[in-house]
């Protein structure tokens, strides 16, 4: 992908976002089910209902509702949650950091695990043990993150109760932090006991998210390493008297990294999407868990805000991956 290609991608972002907005809106307004019916207390009068409809703008024509909603969204006003009775944007901002920290931790674990497994696999190349590594990677990959969450919860939360299995922090711990990025802030300000308590809670959900992604990284990276090692320049490096580990690290790895980031990076969206259920399973207070509550409560403004947030994160993630690949590959940088 060249710079022109990246600009083309950028140009496609607004129409994609618009399409996303249309679908989110249509999905929640055209389908049956009246959110107001859920909100009215028993014995509310017809006038109360009408007033509520007017308050949420549900009495206007659908196109008008869309235009109004789009205008509000564009100016950062995502409306008020019906079930929690707070601003949607405030709710999102309060919860999003928890999800971002979880996804980041999972990504770090996955990359470390994936790279180690890929290197082990490539060092064992051609031996019988390589087959075992490939098989293990296949098994990790076949089981999705939410099943890993359940398995880990059973194994290390219940059977061998090593780690807590619900929440982001212990309720009795007094969190004295200014931002909602608890982990990052406590690490940066040197409050390591708080950080350690947070990590204890985050480890199992993060590992559940990380395992399938680690397998994916391992598989792509190993295939790319094998491919790069067969190239002339790597063979010739042997004829220059470099050792195999040195060749793998200095000559082969930088080349194998490019397809791995390109293919694996795009799949980070899977990891992010996985937070929805994994957070639910571990009762972790991020936007994924909130999304399920919002769906169950038919809290339309909140659902819209959440789905939009995920879509924006997805699109941003894909763009970021394209940029990183372009930075890693000198052939694209100067192309």
């Amino acid at each position, binding site marked *: 992908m060249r710079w022109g290609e990246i600009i083309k991608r950028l140009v496609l972002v607004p129409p*994609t976002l618009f399409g*996303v907005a249309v679908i989110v809106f249509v999905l929640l307004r055209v389908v049956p089910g009246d959110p107001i019916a859920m909100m009215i207390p028993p014995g509310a009068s017809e006038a109360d209902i009408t007033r509520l409809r007017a308050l949420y703008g549900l009495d206007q024509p659908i196109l008008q509702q869309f235009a109004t909603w789009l205008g509000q969204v564009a100016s950062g006003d995502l409306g008020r949650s019906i079930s929690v009775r707070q601003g949607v944007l405030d709710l999102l901002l309060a919860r999003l950091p928890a999800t971002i920290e979880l996804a980041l931790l999972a990504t770090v674990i996955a990359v470390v695990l994936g790279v180690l497994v890929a290197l082990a696999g490539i060092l064992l190349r051609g031996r019988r043990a390589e087959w075992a590594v490939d098989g293990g990677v296949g098994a990790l990959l076949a089981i999705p993150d939410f099943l890993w969450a359940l398995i880990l919860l059973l194994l290390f939360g*219940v*059977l061998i109760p090593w780690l807590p299995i619900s929440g982001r922090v212990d309720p009795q711990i007094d969190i004295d932090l200014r931002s909602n990025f608890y982990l990052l802030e406590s690490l940066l300000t040197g409050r390591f006991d708080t950080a350690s308590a947070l990590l204890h809670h985050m480890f199992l959900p993060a590992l559940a998210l990380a395992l399938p992604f680690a397998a994916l990284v391992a598989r792509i990276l190993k295939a790319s390493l094998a491919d790069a090692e067969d190239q002339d320049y790597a063979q010739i490096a042997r004829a220059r008297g470099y050792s195999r580990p040195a060749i793998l690290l200095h000559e082969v790895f930088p080349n194998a990294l490019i397809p791995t980031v390109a293919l694996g990076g795009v799949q980070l969206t899977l990891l992010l999407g996985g937070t929805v259920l994994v957070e*639910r399973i571990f009762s972790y207070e991020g936007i994924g868990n909130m999304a*399920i509550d919002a769906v169950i409560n038919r809290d339309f403004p909140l659902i819209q805000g959440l789905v939009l947030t995920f879509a924006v994160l997805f699109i941003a993630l894909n763009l970021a991956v394209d940029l990183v690949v372009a930075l890693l590959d000198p052939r694209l940088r100067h192309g």
Partner: protein
Amino acid sequence: MADAMADIALTLPPSRLLAGLKRGGARLWVGAALVAVLVLVAAFAPVLAPHDPLEQDLMSAQLPPAWMQGGDHAYLLGTDSLGRCVLSRLIYSARIAVAVALIAATLAALIGVALGLFAGSFGGWVDQLISRLIDVWMAFPPVLLSIVLAAVIGAGLTSVIAAIVVVDWTRFARVVRAETMVQLTRDYAAAARVIGLSRAKLLRLEVLPNLVPLLVTLLAVEMGIAILVEVILSFVGISVAGDTPTWGSMIAEGRQIVYQAPWIMALPIVCIISSVIGLNLLGDGLRLALDPVQRS
């Protein structure tokens, strides 16, 4: 697609068919066996289940499996918190899983393949339109989208299937679009155009048969995904209504009492994993068996 499959089966001489089965190897057999068990259990659930899966017996609630301390031989895998037979509920759950896998995956494949063929063979604005549509779809987390869809359509098997189809058709469309484009640039497709085959015939006779190995794999994988999505929806509590047994709802119930009765959560997980791995292996094995080129 079934047509194309039949074409291939007919044109393969028995020896090639045998060679294909050999190429599929252990994956094919293990996968087929696991899937066969799943299908048979679903089909013969009333015969196999020792109890009515809905029958409550509050006197013997949360019994552990029969081989554990305090187990009861009448309830081989124990009972849940309402005293319902876990084994029977697992067996009946397989029916929902199989129904969702078959119907949802097939419908998603039909829609996806059709749109993929359109985009790949017409190109131009048709391709632009369908590709943008896929872009928009890819911007949503599939799990969240399924949950939202199922919730707004309302509870029930139909809404679960609709949610899966609406979300997952892109998996087929993307691959088929790209493959169709590749196939149409190959020499044999050009040759077919020269002898005057219409676009539809070209697609049916030349392009689709070459897509079959890929589609079979995708279909098997999609069936696994459909099972997982149904599990997710019923775990969240928005799948089939009421007390119909599903693996997902059993997990959700088990999660509540995971410290007291971990087996209630563990057993459906085992069922799900063996079904999904079975389908993945079957898909892999079939691809190896059907693909005449890729032998490694």
